[in-house]
């Protein structure tokens, strides 16, 4: 094994310890558990509700409502007379969620072209999301029975119940989207432009955390000085730390991505509108942007890690990187960078992590200038950070932890 692989193995082994892995694993497990819980509720929505029917009406429209309900629900109790209060107890004991009471004279009111009322006696077993969804299901079945009645009474066709069909054309900057409503656009936006920035944020924060932890552990275990006097080039040590941390950081980010995708897909049907979608080349460009961003953040974190006295100190130093990753994420979610005022746009674009976050949206709008400009900027930033990291590794700061003039200013400020 050559020196680089030996160091890389050491870094990976160090970072794969439970103290680092457990927090990474806990959050994806939490997301998956949440997704399963919500998925379970939605599965419940698809199930037929169990109801009881008390049909006191002896006319044809009462029978029609009864037939519609019987066809689309699981009827656990039926009677044509009785006390609703005692009937609901029987329904509840049989596992039913509600008793529908069709009162006497219901058909007569419909014949007179007035609305007929039906009583809905619901049993809410738990004050929770799943406990309340059954009520919405029963309302849906009553609406359905109402439609059947309308068709029967008026002799109209289903199309006439909804006689206007909008055909959408949506204009988005210079693009014209046929057969796409703003709502469909919103669905597409949610899956592609919110998800990607969140993933990018995780990649940046995790990788940064790993490299800072690595430096913090070296300082805390007091192993750095020994390592630096071994016959290994400093650039090899820097490369092993960057690549080792990036590997674990990417693993963590992949776990988060899968778990968030799973969590998000429990809300949506996963087949969001394809009104706007990125092609393979677009994704490759976003990938390049993200890679350069990652290299930059790792080198920056390594530089910050030099000033960490221990692991705790290292965590504190991660804070500025986290902020730099979170700001572009929110900016991309809630605004369009291109529409912001010049000073705010300049500040956002100066943050290297903004560029991969905004790249998908810009590519969809064919704004390649901003994307490629961003990639060039990120490449310069990454090269500068690596150069600085190697310089810091070759300087006294690695041993003394001195933050130079900035440290002196801060000390004077404290005094």
């Amino acid at each position, binding site marked *: 094994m050559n020196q680089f692989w030996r160091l890389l193995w050491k870094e990976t082994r*160090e970072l794969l310890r439970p103290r680092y892995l457990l927090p990474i694993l806990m959050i994806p497990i939490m997301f998956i558990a949440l997704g399963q819980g919500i998925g379970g509720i939605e599965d419940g929505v698809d199930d037929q509700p169990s109801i009881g029917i008390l049909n006191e009406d002896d006319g044809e429209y009462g029978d029609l409502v009864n037939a519609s309900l019987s066809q689309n629900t699981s009827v656990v109790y039926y009677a044509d007379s009785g006390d609703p209060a005692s009937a609901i107890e029987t329904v509840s004991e049989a596992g039913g969620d509600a008793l529908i009471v069709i009162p006497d004279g219901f058909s007569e009111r419909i014949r007179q072209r007035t609305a007929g009322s039906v009583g809905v006696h619901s049993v809410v077993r738990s004050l929770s999301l799943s406990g309340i969804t059954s009520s919405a299901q029963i309302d849906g079945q009553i609406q359905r029975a109402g439609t059947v009645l309308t068709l029967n009474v008026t002799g109209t066709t289903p199309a006439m119940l909804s006689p206007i069909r909008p055909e959408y054309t949506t204009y988005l900057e210079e693009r014209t989207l046929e057969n796409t409503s703003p709502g469909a656009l919103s669905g597409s936006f949610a899956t592609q432009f919110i998800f990607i920035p969140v993933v990018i944020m995780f990649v940046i924060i995790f990788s940064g955390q790993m490299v800072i932890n690595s430096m913090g552990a070296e300082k805390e*275990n007091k*192993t750095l*000085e*020994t390592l630096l*006097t071994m*016959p290994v080039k400093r650039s090899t040590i820097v490369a092993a730390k960057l690549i080792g941390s990036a590997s674990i950081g990417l693993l963590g980010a992949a776990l988060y991505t899968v778990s968030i995708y799973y969590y998000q897909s429990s809300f949506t049907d996963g087949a969001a509108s394809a009104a706007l979608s990125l092609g393979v080349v677009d994704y490759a460009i976003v990938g390049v942007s993200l890679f350069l961003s990652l290299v930059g953040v790792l080198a920056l974190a390594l530089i910050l890690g030099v000033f960490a006295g221990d692991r705790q100190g290292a965590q504190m130093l991660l804070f500025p990187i986290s902020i730099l990753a979170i700001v572009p994420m929110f900016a991309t979610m809630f605004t369009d960078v291109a529409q912001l005022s010049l000073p705010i746009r300049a500040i956002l674009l100066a943050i290297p992590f903004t560029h991969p976050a905004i790249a998908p949206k810009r590519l969809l709008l064919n704004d390649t200038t901003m994307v490629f400009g961003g990639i060039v900027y990120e490449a310069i930033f990454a090269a500068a950070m690596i150069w600085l990291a190697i310089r810091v590794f070759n300087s006294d700061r690695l041993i003394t932890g001195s933050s130079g003039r900035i440290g002196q200013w801060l000390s004077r400020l404290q005094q």
Partner: protein
Amino acid sequence: MAESAVTVSELEKRYGDVQALRGVSFSVEPGEIYGLVGPNGAGKSTTLRTLATLLTVGGGDVSVFGADVESEPNEVRKRIRYLPEDAGSYDNLTGRQYLAFVADFYGGDPDALVERGIEIADLADRIESKTSEYSKGMTRKLLLASTIMTEPDLAILDEPTSGLDVENARAIRDIIKQFPGANRSVLLSSHNMLEVEYLCDRIGLLNEGEIVAEGPPREIIDRYDAENLEEAFLEAVA
């Protein structure tokens, strides 16, 4: 004449407003144990760290076996092993794994180096335990073993017995005493006068960044007409 193991000439170092070293000069010859002796803050660790290529040279010239520490740091690192004062090991590794990790960076047969390291460390079965479970003395023995198992031309040891109990300190001293050979030297620092008197062939008394006296311990004691090295040091800095 054989090439000096270490040549330090007019070495200066400043940390901000503090002048840590003020023109330190000395040399270490092959086969010699040389000690830098002085109180805390005298500049011992700064000198050793500069020789170990950890700190930059503020002024003057520093070379190890003819290689300049500033312009040829990798050449220097090939010839030395450095044991920092307060060093630790990777606590997720066992003693044996740590020795293997270090041995892999040096030429030759890594397995043979590890076996030599195990013999020097003399930790018996505990060599298979995680180093996080080691006492300070055990860790120091392991680190010293990892330092000299590779048989470096120059072993730089910063306060090798600092903070150890009598038994462990003695074991470490015995290991150091046996280390030098015809081409192997030791440069160590200590503020324990008895220790350096026992270990070193020559010493340099360092005070406030300057060498105030240099020579074999016995000669320095005689020079100041003192009873021991401690008294000689106090006379030298008076």
